[in-house]
């Protein structure tokens, strides 16, 4: 349940700010310390829990700070811009801003962004983006213009998506809004036009973003008082093109429709947003927390002295201007539960640990509290003399993670794991990953309700695991009949024992279609060929030449005859995939896995006959699909190869022939396989003949060159 705690004012003295309120509140490199920049000349560092300032810096009379100060998390220095173009960098020990490092830039800065885990970036008013290091290397470099003439940057945000920095900024031009997304790993700037939908005349007043899977969720608070959501893909399909994105209504009438100012929106977590503004046209301004999932108001707090329409959310604290004071309201959100709703939730004995549930804050979680911080400190630190680096010996993330596995909740482990995976890979990365998996499995054994599926999936997808590194993982998945994990393992592990492969096969063949329907299986290896081809292509199908040998040449007249008698049925069987797409994907994973025949054969004998028949039918179907084109390949990404299909057919028949031959349903299949093998044998014999004749040719050739046991030659040495 989301709750706002009792707020407190941060500054005893009113900020010397104009009507616009402070320029910004930014986190510093230490928790609980924030940089507050007022719109005049001052930057103040506050320790929030103590409610007192730790330091204050001002620019000279006549200069004006134009961009909120930020902290460079890599060096621990502070950066501010005054008079639009002058960059100042200082640290805690500097007293006078006039005497600190100064760089004058060639263009006007809109904002400097800095978050944990990456270097700060500078966004210019013309839309150009530069990394701080690159900019400082050559401050007077030419800054290009990205946005058009009358476009104005309205709002901007910098965050991490899957360990890559992404900067988004919104511009406005004649009432049209555009979103620009700059990804720093690919250096691609994508532009999106925000389509407003029906409510054309409304003016968007506040934005906020969060990252949800593969989309950046951009929320906007419109002047009509509604919150709209726009999804912008993180990986655009065509980054060059100007794309249009449509917004959808998320919450209706959270603030009064005719509120002029003092309206702001910020996303708190996946399901919660904070809205600042008057809920009704006549009422006082309020801070309210909304649950977007259930569209309910969770809590609200009146701000009778009015506010400036600015809202910052950093590390569980909401910052806003209340009257003339900067106010901090801590915000907490507990996991909601039915028991909680019914008032039956027992308060845990240890409220210090359990009362506060941790949330994934994508702004801070990436690289938060990581040991690699120090190593990643920028080179520029050397330039400044008096810098004091706080070298704390931090616990390595791996041990932290391993400790978390032993006791923490599943969700918390996931957070820790994501943190760990975000760090640069150390040489012993794979052994740590192995230990993590073993730890998870060990906990599962001790505590069967604990099923860290997401963690395991994430770990398997690191591509460093192998079967021997985490024995037991696949057994665990087999026990749980978790086909998705099994498929992942089969795809990723190079060293699965044959007995386990066979156990997977058993499960894949026996699992019900309805339970398969619910699972999320990677269908990459199965392209459209599993779609049933019903009719129209029967003529074509009957004329398949098997490796160039047409069945007519076959001596096996009567079996061919038998097949021809029921061409309709036979072709139908061969053209429609005998298994569903999802099962096909699973079986393909088996086909791709490595095995040794000797070890696999005894296990294959344990599979029930009807499953063997089904698998054989599927393999035969694949073979027919293969032989449809000249290259003998299947369509799609990473499909099973012809060799794999053939080997498996042989293996299955070797292991189960005596059983399969007794089943009436398998008779036709066996006959067609027999026919096929016959043609293969004739091919092989032809190949052998060719090989022998080639060898003879080679011998002849050799004899020509080497025949004489004795010769007299002329040799000239140069």
């Amino acid at each position, binding site marked *: 349940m989301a709750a706002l705690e009792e707020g407190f004012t941060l500054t005893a003295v009113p900020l010397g700010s104009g009507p616009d309120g402070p320029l910004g509140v930014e986190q510093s490199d230490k928790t609980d310390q924030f940089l507050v920049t007022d719109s005049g000349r001052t930057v103040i560092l506050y320790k929030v829990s103590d409610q007192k300032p730790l330091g204050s810096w001002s620019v000279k009379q006549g200069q004006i700070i134009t961009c909120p100060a930020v902290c460079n998390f890599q060096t621990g220095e502070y950066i501010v811009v005054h008079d639009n173009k002058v960059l100042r960098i200082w640290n805690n020990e500097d007293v006078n801003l006039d005497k600190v490092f100064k760089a004058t830039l060639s263009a006007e800065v809109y904002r400097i962004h800095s978050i944990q885990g990456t270097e700060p970036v500078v966004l210019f008013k013309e839309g150009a983006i530069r990394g701080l290091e690159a900019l400082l290397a050559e401050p007077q470099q030419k800054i290009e213009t990205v946005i058009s003439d009358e476009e104005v940057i309205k709002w901007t945000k910098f965050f991490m998506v899957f360990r890559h920095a992404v900067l988004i900024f919104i511009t406005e031009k004649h009432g049209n809004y555009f979103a620009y997304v700059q990804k720093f790993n690919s250096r691609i700037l994508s532009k999106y036009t925000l389509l407003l939908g029906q409510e054309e005349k409304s003016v968007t007043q506040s934005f906020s973003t969060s990252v949800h899977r593969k989309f950046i969720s951009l929320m906007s608070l419109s002047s009509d008082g509604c919150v709209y959501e726009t999804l912008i893909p993180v990986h655009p399909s065509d980054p060059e093109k100007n794309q249009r994105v449509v917004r959808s209504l998320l919450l209706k009438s959270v603030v009064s429709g005719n509120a002029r100012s003092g309206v702001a929106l910020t996303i708190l977590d996946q399901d919660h947003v904070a809205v600042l503004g008057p809920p009704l046209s006549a009422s006082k301004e309020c801070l309210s927390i909304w649950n977007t999932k259930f569209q309910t108001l969770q809590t609200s707090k009146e701000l009778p002295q009015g506010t400036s329409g600015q809202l910052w959310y950093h590390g569980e604290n909401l910052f806003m201007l209340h009257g003339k004071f900067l106010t901090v309201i801590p915000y907490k959100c507990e996991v909601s539960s039915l028991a909680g709703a019914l008032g039956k939730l027992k308060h845990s004995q240890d409220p210090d640990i359990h009362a506060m549930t941790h949330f994934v804050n994508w702004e801070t979680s990436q690289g938060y509290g990581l040991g690699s911080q120090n190593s990643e400190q920028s080179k520029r630190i050397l330039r400044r003399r008096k810098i004091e680096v706080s070298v704390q010996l931090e616990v390595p993330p791996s041990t932290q993670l391993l400790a978390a596995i032993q006791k923490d909740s599943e969700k918390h482990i996931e957070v820790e794991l994501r943190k760990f995976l975000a760090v640069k890979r150390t040489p012993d990365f*794979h*052994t740590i990953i*192995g*230990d993590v998996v*073993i730890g998870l499995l060990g906990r599962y054994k001790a505590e069967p309700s604990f099923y860290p599926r997401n963690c395991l999936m994430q770990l398997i997808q690191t591509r460093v695991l192998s079967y*021997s*590194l*985490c*024995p037991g993982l696949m057994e665990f998945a087999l026990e749980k009949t978790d086909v998705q994990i099994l498929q992942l393992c089969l795809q990723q592990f190079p060293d699965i024992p044959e007995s386990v492969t066979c156990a997977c096969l058993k499960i894949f063949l026996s699992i019900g279609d309805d339970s398969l329907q619910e699972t999320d299986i990677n269908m990459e290896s199965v392209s459209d060929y599993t779609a049933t081809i019903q009719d129209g292509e029967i003529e074509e199908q009957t004329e398949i030449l098997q490796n160039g040998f047409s069945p007519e040449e076959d001596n096996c007249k009567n079996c061919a005859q038998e097949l021809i008698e029921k061409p309709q049925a036979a072709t139908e069987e061969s053209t429609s995939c005998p298994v569903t797409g999802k099962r096909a994907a699973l079986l393909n994973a088996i086909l791709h896995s490595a095995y040794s025949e*000797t070890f696999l054969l005894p296990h294959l004998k344990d599979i029930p006959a009807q499953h063997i028949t089904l698998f054989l039918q599927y393999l035969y179907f694949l073979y027919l699909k293969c032989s449809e084109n000249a290259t003998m390949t299947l369509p799609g990404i990473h499909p099973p190869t012809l060799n794999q299909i053939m080997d498996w057919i042989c293996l299955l028949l070797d292991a189960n022939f005596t059983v399969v031959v007794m089943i009436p349903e398998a008779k036709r299949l066996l006959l067609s396989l027999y026919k096929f093998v016959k043609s*293969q*044998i004739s091919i*092989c*014999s032809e*190949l*052998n003949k060719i*090989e022998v004749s080639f060898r003879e040719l080679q011998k002849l050739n*050799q004899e020509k060159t*080497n025949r*004489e*046991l*004795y*010769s*007299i*030659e*002329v*040799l*000239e*040495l*140069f």
Partner: protein
Amino acid sequence: MGEFKVHRVRFFNYVPSGIRCVAYNNQSNRLAVSRTDGTVEIYNLSANYFQEKFFPGHESRATEALCWANGQRLFSAGLNGEIIEYDLQALNIKYAMDAFGGPIWSMAASPNGSQLLVGCEDGSVKLFQITPDKIQFERNFDRQKSRILSLSWHPAGTHIAAGSIDYISVFDVKSGSAIHKMLVDRQYMGVSKRKCIIWGVAFLSDGTVISVDSAGKVQFWDSATGTLVKNHLIANTDVQSIAISDQEDSFVVGTAEGTVFHFQLVSVTSNSSEKQWVRTKPFQHHTHDVRAVAHSPIALISGGTDTHLVIRPLMEKVEVKNYDAALRKITFPHRRLVSCAKKKQLLLFQFAHHLELWRLGSTVATGKNGDTLPLSKNADHLLHLKTKGPENVICSCISPCGSWIAYSTASRFFLYRLNYEHDNINLQRVSKMPAFLRSALQILFSEDSTKLFVASNQGSVHVIRLLEGSFKHLHTFQPQSGTVESMCLLAVSPDGNWLAASGTSAGVHVYNVKQLKLHCTVPAYNFPVTALAIAPNTNNLVIAHSDQQVFEYSIPDKQYTQWSRTIQKQGFHHLWLQRDTPITHISFHPKRPMHIFLHDAYMFCIIDKSLPLPNDKTLLYNPLPPTNESDIIRRRTAHAFKISKKYKPLLFMDLLDERTLVVVERPLDDIIAQLPPPIKKKKFGT
């Protein structure tokens, strides 16, 4: 550089014998190899794998087992029932002792080197005590039902494992009684074979016994309980050999299909202490049975019926890129089997049990580079000289005039006089050889064929004057007091004044033949000498070593020549140093004193001392320059090493006259054609 008429000879029908055993000595980093004809060769792995010593074979002495004991003593045992110790200094057999158990199939020296164990045909395992100068029978272990094919000591020396037919016995050394008998499954892939032969066993210090057998299995047994622990089926055919590393963390097995498998002891999971044996790497360097394997600290060594000795370095153990990092395949002996009578254009080929004398053909035609000239007269096989007795020929030589042939076996020295009457040859044995001329390691005739030099295995060199049909012993150069090393290489100066002789490790001795005294000794070098020759006129001694260094030493001045110092200062080209076969013969051009002709198995080279030396940036092996290239560029890029790789594998090369070369090639295909067919492997699934 010049144009030569090249007699390209491929009729030297030499087939090396298959390798039967290999034994690696960690202390001296030497490898002993025994072949099916009984020859035992010693390779010095530290000296660029040079075959520095060999013991000639014997028809009745089929070696079945070879081992090093008590430091550097070498023993072999064979089907004639004898245990033989070799004298590594004098290069002869120290003694042979009958074990009285019938043919011996296996032998193993105890870990402390003081005892020797042999496994015999009659099922007995006999323990011998190694005394300083002999071995002494101690006792028999419990007699088994069938022959003992393999033996292995527990590293503590308390137990032994003995592989027999269908079972492995574990003996307690103290009591001599079998404490376990582990029966091996005869079945192979469901088919019952007649017998399962345990070709090899290895006893680990934790009590595990590893066995390899004729059913293609590598099995791990617990010797304490006598139970099978683990079974690896690795081949469809026999697994014939096993060797384990000293650390017991890796071993190697060889199969009859020519595959060598490497097994390693690896951790089951990361940072767990539990380890298991895993088959890690297969190597297919052989076409035939791998009869013997050895495991040096850095390499897997294998040999078999296909006669190659393969040294496969383990890349994880090799630290620097040097000789050790390269795969070695040694096929030909590192000594000369061909001698040549230049004036009569005769070639003498040495085989294990006979000699062949051939006369080269001739042509009147001329041609340009690369042409094959029409023969006006083909090569003639003049003589097939069968040796007497069961012993192999050690060395042989034909005199430059072609009228003397000498050869030696381990116990007898033979000298023949040849008379040529048109096409008829009259062969006459010179009888009554003196008693001291019993066996020779090297024979050499002087340029004018009046003197014969014989290096005997006592370190002495005999000088004999040859007269028409008789001879006279002139002098014996005795070894310096205290050295017993025998001389293996001889070289005489064309004017007959100087004789150079070299052993395997000490320096080269130069004798004055006129005054019959030691003239000087070339300082000893770290690597053994592979070839020696004395240049005409200048009397410069050219010495090639196994590390591919070539020195030139002026005999009259008793010092290295200026050229030799220059090339030592600059260093040889890196590609020259990377060649992996030693130089086996050096000769000179009678008219061009600046030229040195030398060859190894894969190239021959003319070093022109007047040209600048190549540095590492220049192309060492220059291909034939295009014809349109101007002479100026050619001259600028010319360097002292003129190399031709046209003829290979090259067993012999010499200069017959100013414009004629003779090369003796032995194509590998011809050797393979004479080997028994390998196990056929199927292709294309039929």
